[in-house]
């Protein structure tokens, strides 16, 4: 046996274990976390805070034009499962399912004796990695890091490290992945504040992730009332209360996200540049809106 299959098999084990750790907490997770040097998993409430109320681990949320579960983005992932001959699971674009698939393909490739078939499996693995994981996981992981959970911040960092390490062993795509090609940006014009908020909260359009915790913190820092509801409702109410300050805050966050994405370009190439461009555009757009809003307000005054 060459060492390459051995390497693929052991890294596959890491991906499967990382995937399981974002599923519903379970006693067996302690063993997995220990093996990955992540310490003791936190209580289930923290898992809910991070993955249900914060950064939900579904590709569609980060790649879909609505920034929500399901839709075309989820269908595209399910289609990939079918193309490989698998029955898509109920939640085909869940991170755990995708990491499990990455592990399964890696193990199958390692066990395959026919070089041609092994090459095909390797190709499938590369597509999965570049098209359906690296297009959104680094952004998702940065959102997790903002959640304040030490355990899941470490988990997310290890996840990105492992994926980037894996990408170094597989051919990088020459062009932007299909999942990002043609992804709509921020709309040029929006009718309502709710529409603007929804667009800003759609990662693939805005290039950033604004979690519920961040919104709450911003409302406090800006001295705004925090309205209880879904994130777009919260952000919209902030924009209604003080559009200038809120747009300035979003622009500031977009600057930070743009800087993060730009740093990733060294390893992730066009994918990171796509995200950086989106964040930068958001910063510019928000500042322009802030300025125009400020003008209007000063005229009124």
């Amino acid at each position: 046996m060459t060492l390459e299959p051995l390497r693929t098999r052991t890294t596959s084990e890491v991906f499967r274990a990382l995937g399981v750790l974002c599923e519903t907490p379970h006693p067996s997770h302690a063993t997995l976390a220990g093996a990955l040097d992540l310490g003791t998993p936190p209580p289930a409430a923290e898992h809910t805070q991070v993955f249900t109320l914060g950064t939900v681990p579904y590709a569609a949320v980060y790649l879909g034009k609505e920034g929500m579960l399901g839709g075309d983005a989820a269908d595209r992932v399910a289609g990939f499962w079918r193309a490989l001959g698998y029955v898509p699971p109920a939640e085909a674009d869940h991170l755990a399912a995708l990491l499990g698939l990455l592990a399964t393909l890696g193990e199958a490739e390692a066990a395959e004796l026919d070089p041609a078939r092994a090459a095909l499996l390797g190709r499938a693995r590369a597509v999965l990695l570049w098209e359906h994981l690296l297009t959104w996981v680094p952004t998702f992981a940065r959102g997790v890091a903002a959640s304040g959970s030490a355990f899941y911040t470490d988990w997310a960092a290890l996840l990105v490290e492992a994926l980037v390490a894996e990408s170094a062993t597989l051919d990088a795509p020459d062009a932007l992945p299909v999942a990002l090609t043609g992804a709509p940006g921020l709309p040029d014009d929006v009718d309502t504040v709710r529409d603007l908020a929804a667009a800003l909260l759609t990662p693939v359009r805005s290039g950033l992730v604004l979690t519920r915790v961040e919104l709450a913190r911003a409302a406090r820092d800006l001295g705004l009332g925090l309205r209880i509801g879904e994130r777009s409702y919260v952000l919209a109410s902030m924009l209604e209360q003080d559009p200038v300050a809120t747009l300035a805050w979003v622009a500031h966050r977009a600057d930070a996200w743009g800087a993060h994405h730009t740093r990733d370009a060294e390893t992730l190439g066009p994918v990171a540049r796509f995200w950086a461009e989106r964040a930068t555009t958001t910063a510019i757009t928000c500042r322009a809106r802030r300025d125009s809003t400020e003008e209007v307000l000063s005229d009124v005054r």
Partner: protein
Amino acid sequence: MTTTNDRTPVEGLGERVSAARDEVLGRGETFYPGPSRIHLAAFPPKERWDDWVELDSRAWPTRVEKRSMLVPTTCFNCESACGLLAYVDRETLQVRKFEGNPEHPGSRGRNCAKGPATVNQVTDPDRILYPMRRAGERGEGRWEQVDWDTALEDIAGRIRTAITENRPNAVMYHVGRPGEDGFTERVLASWGVDGHNSHTNVCSSGARSGYHYWSGIDRPSPDHANAKVIFLISSHLETGHYFNPHAQRIMEAKANGAKIIVVDTRLSNTATHADHWVSPYPGSEAAINLAIAHGLIASKRYDREFVRRWWNWKEYLRAVHPQRPETFEEFEDVLSTLYAEYTPEYAAAESGIDAAVIREITDVVASAGTALSTHNWRSAAAGNLGGWQVSRTLFLVSALLGAVASPGGTHLNAWNKFVPKPMHVPGHPHQWNELTWPLEYPLAMNELSFLLPHMLQEGRGTLDVYFTRVYNPVWTNPDGMVWSEVLREESLIGLHVALTPTWNETAYLADYVLPMGLGSERHDLHSYEQYDGQWIGFRQPVTRTARERLGESVTDTRQSNPGEVWEENEFWMELSWRIDPDGTLGIRKFYESQTDPGKRLSVDEYYRWIFENSVPGLPEKAAAEGLDPLAFMRRYGAFEVSSHVGQVFEEPVDDGLLAGAATTDLGRVYSPAPKPPVTNLAPMGAPVPDAEGRHPVGVDVDGEVKRGFPTPSGLLEFYSSTLADWGWPEYAVPTYIKSHIHPEHLAADQVPLISTFRLPTQIHTRSANAKWLNELAQTNPLWIHPTQAAPLGLRSGDLVRVSTDIGHFVVKAWVTEGIRPGVVACSHHMGRWVPKEQPERHGGQTAATVDLSRTGSTWTMKRLRGVGPYESSDPDTARIWWSDVGVHQNMTFAVHPDPISGMHCWHQAVRVTRAEPGDSYGDISVDTDKSRALYRQWLERTRDARQVSPDGTRRPYWLMRPLKPGPEVFRIPDEARE
């Protein structure tokens, strides 16, 4: 090239995870929780089944832990035998809830609503907990509690008397939902009694006939999950045979791109998932199948090699076209004309389906190749005169494509089912019971069970002891009032013993009502064809097993069941033991312990022997987990014996069997060698030996001896010499028989009534005491199309009178486009009733209280009140918000036995009118004189064995029969000829 020293940090972590995984798996524990790992779909890992902790949702926000033992068993509500996991409270030893058993290969952890509802049945405040004996006249409604000893001694004494007085046919056991495969058949065989009476002729014997004449095996086993096209003449996604195990595989295939064709007159839930929904005039399904076959043949899109190798075309040519050369090309020439009349236009005229649609689905079917899975079980095969040709013509389509036991094709159950051999196997009884197997029906697939009351009234015999066992013929069968008449007549039925978990319309007319355990309170061993593999599922009394896990010793299931509820295996063992107290009748030996001679066999020893000696691979699998085979089955509840069984008929025959073998000129191979021991007792046809006594072992195909099929020819029998020789040559090849409700047979004001369809959340009488299920479904309106309702001025909810040949019932209309115009439909499962004389609580949550009266031969039922809230130990009974329970339509149906299959043809020709003045919802009126006249009319359609038997026997010996007597009693006795 990298070396191990160059490993990255991620690789290092991977090695650690691998090592941890190996260590955990090495302990037989679960490393990754599964198989469904996301969100609420998770299953508790198996190593924690002894002590599973959950938070009590009712105690929220306080965190109160509930500790349970998880004990597997098998659902008893429908025939699918899905795996359940009982959550048994560690402190109270009561069952908290049931969920799916992820270790079950058939159901794979999933259940329909009926499985978890088992907990309702267990905790039903009105369930029967003690043996009851009638204290007044039969049906009077007065009951007294008795002890088991009294009941057993009485029943055993009567059976002993019948046996010793050489009247064994006076003992009969009539079963609804069977328990363990073959168990009660063996009990009856040990008594020397031909008294097995199944419900099958009101259920599936029509479809069975069609499959059996083709293959020698009476059930299909479609490999839905791997099919490219799924062709259903049924509603398999909601209620069909093996509903849950099949539905999940059908949906898998659909997700993989398979096309689904559903033939169903109703817009069923299944039809809503179809790519092609075909709503034909009922009874025309075989014509559609033949039009598809015609299309495949005419365009030569059939699998020539498969047909050439595996059809008995040579026998057909020799019998029907003796002047033609016996070449395959000649056969193809004949085949090309044989179905020429069944054009899409012909099928369109019969079915009302556009010819273009039939052509379109023919193309879809053809596109499947060998990955076409087809299924028909009840539905049209159970509704129509000649319904058995529906499954037979459907299998013709599969056989044309070579989609037989292929991946994604239709397999056969005997190869996808495993029935292990028990410690004792009694021989054939040397009796023939003409009450169940009358000479008029030599080809009936199963007992003529639903004719029993008519035959008793005709004076064909009497019964000393009649068991109804988890069966309610007064309500389920046609002609319920004839049943009622007979069950009241002690001169016809001396003792009626109802073995049942619940009160029901038949139990009210019993002498003893004996409480039988539910799915979590009894032992049974099951195996069903649900994919291309073989598994066994173990039903067990879960509180007994839980107590044993805690170190208690339980020797009788009554010690752990509620009240004095018993399981059947121990009941039959004990009853048999008492029938033959000194062993002189030769019965006792079949129930004697091997490890403790002189003592009665225990269920532990019974199953231990089976699991250690008769299930290949189980001892090894158990040993790998440090368990003995019985402990393994008690722990996991199921075991997969094999998977990917494939085309057994293509397997070569062992050389050892071929020494001295003789081959006929049609290729059948007979061996003089002793029969090899049988490891799998799954029932199938039994082709007879040749004139020299050599037994059939295979069939010569292209110079190789293959195992073939268990048919007389060893091949797939396109041509049935059995049908030809036994008086029905016109049906010797698959064809179309016009139904008794064909438009040609209806008066201008009559329409067909479809009464067979089922509700996904109910199951005959058995779901009666499941409150969750009752809350989901309480009524059965008459489906009627707007174009039919308009002339009658009907709107949904209006009362209509539906008149059959023997009476009428009054029901509410439901005006819907979900039914074909010109056809009406009313669901099964509804219309339960309790006579006002019975104790009030016997009606429970589901039965209306009725006044049942009789004037001459006319019976009238008036509803006094529906259900309503009442106080009980379960606070939920005070919350019953519904009063409707539906209408009992079956009582107004006369018997319609198919003259060949024996299947009751359920569809009715009815007149639908507005309710008349004085009609009330739920009214029923029946004239049993008319019932008897119709019974005699249908009897005239038969061809009696005394006239058609080619060899002086009652029935072809090779045909399946649930309890098969010795060959000597197959001969028609001289006195019967007179």
